[in-house]
């Protein structure tokens, strides 16, 4: 069993706010990342949840892709 398989099975032990708790940070996270700004430490638990939850990670990637696309359209 590889490290990534084990991670997928057991997740991380770090504090994890769950789906609803993380959802509150998703929009702010995506704007910070899309504008290239550094992430404050308060996003640590959000990032843990992203590693642990496929659905929330995919939704966040979708919102980020949308913002990057909008940015490209605005500057293009």
């Amino acid at each position, binding site marked *: *069993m*590889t*490290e990534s*398989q*084990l*991670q*997928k*099975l*057991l*997740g*991380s*032990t770090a504090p*994890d706010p*769950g*789906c*609803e708790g993380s*959802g509150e*940070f*998703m*929009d*702010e996270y*995506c*704007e910070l990342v899309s504008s290239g700004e550094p992430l404050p430490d308060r996003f640590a638990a959000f990032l843990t949840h992203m590693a*642990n*939850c*496929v*659905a929330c990670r*995919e*939704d966040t990637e*979708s*919102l980020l*892709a*949308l*913002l990057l*696309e909008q940015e490209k359209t605005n500057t293009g």
Partner: protein
Amino acid sequence: MNTLAIDQESAEWLRDLQGNGAAREHATARLHALLIRVARGEASRRRSTLPGRAIEDVDDLCVQAASDALMAVLAKLGTYRGAARFTTWACKFAIFETSTRLRRHAWRQRKVELDDTIWDRLPDAAPPVLQRLENDQLIVALHRAVRDHLTERQRFIFQSVTMDDVPIDVLAERLGTSRGAIYKTLHDARAKLRRVLIEAGHGEPVS
């Protein structure tokens, strides 16, 4: 609730949506149109995850998702704090509603069952012999921990999500609950398994 400094465009959205009359109607229609575009964009991004037979229903599904997202946004206007632009905050609801529906749509004709043969199929990248031995012992210990220490519901959710790649939203629908509740069960199951593995002498499996 704390409100951060809100940018002008977001403030205008809020003012119009919280107002009355034509301005509110116009803002609601603009927001609905935005959410439909976002839902269609999300469906387009996820097109490859849908079986062929499911594609024809996707546009209806996007319109429903956008309408539900609009209802959620309007119901939660009072919780918007301005941490991100209003449109980003609103698009989050459209993506959630759309992706949840698309995952369920893709799985609508598939069964979700507890399948213990999955333990025999845990892939292994043929590591060196000693590592292989340790891995085999860990898999056996994990399998035993799942069997002996998880409740029936925890076991079903743990195996379905982590080993069978069943989307958490599909499980939520089949079990009549929410994504958050399924995740909580998964989280508790994982914590219990880690504890059992450590007590069985397998160290801290994942940091």
